[in-house]
């Protein structure tokens, strides 16, 4: 079934084309972000600077891209299969509980996030971001 992200519990399985073990690759379980989380990540990682002397000029936008990638994965990654840790043992998925505006969410445990390589986080963040937005093809089909 297609991943529509209409419901929060929808999951899409993703295997990286760059996985070092194509025989038994890591399967990443990527989920849907709710509107509160999306705006929280956007607000946390985006800054707009308006010139006080020329307020009609275009605002300068700064994006904290690494922080954004980290948060997208922390909130969008719902599990995995076949992820091996040190010593070749399968790494168990675990979560921390975090709240936004009084609502509790289970997100990837901080200690596990710290084990994921930078390139993996960047790749997974791209997938989480993409599947939680309308693509141009989807917009054309809707329009």
């Amino acid at each position, binding site marked *: 079934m*297609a991943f*529509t*992200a*209409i*419901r*929060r519990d929808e999951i899409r399985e993703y295997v990286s084309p760059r996985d070092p073990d194509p025989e038994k690759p890591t399967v990443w379980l990527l989920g*849907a*972000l*709710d*509107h*509160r*989380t*999306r*705006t929280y990540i956007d607000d946390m990682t985006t800054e707009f600077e308006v010139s006080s002397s020329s307020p009609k000029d275009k605002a300068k936008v700064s994006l904290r891209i690494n922080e954004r990638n980290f948060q997208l994965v922390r909130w969008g990654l719902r599990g995995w299969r076949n992820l091996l840790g040190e010593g070749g043992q399968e790494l168990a998925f675990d979560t921390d509980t975090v709240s936004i*505006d009084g*609502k509790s969410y289970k997100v990837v445990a901080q200690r596990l996030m710290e084990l994921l390589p930078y390139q993996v986080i960047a790749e997974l963040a791209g997938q989480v971001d993409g*599947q*939680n*937005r*309308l693509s141009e093809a*989807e*917009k054309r*089909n*809707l*329009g």
Partner: protein
Amino acid sequence: MRSIRGCDEPTATPQFEFEGENLNQCPMKFLKRPTLQYLRHFRFFQMGWLPQEGGIMDQTAKFVEAMEYLGIQFAKVKEDAQQPGSRAYPPP
């Protein structure tokens, strides 16, 4: 009705026009499954029924984006339909 609209087989002559192009098949056949689901939910959304419990912040980001996008598209169609000589059908 299905054969007239080209729901199963293309019709001999075009029955629909989309963005200046004549279609001899039902336009619904071009819509992908997620699009049909978003359209279905758009009607519920207009009545205030949401797919997830809670308010708008509890809905998925993509759902909110899709509803906003559909709202804009339907408003455009409605505006076009009100133009003199328009062949567009006003949305329900």
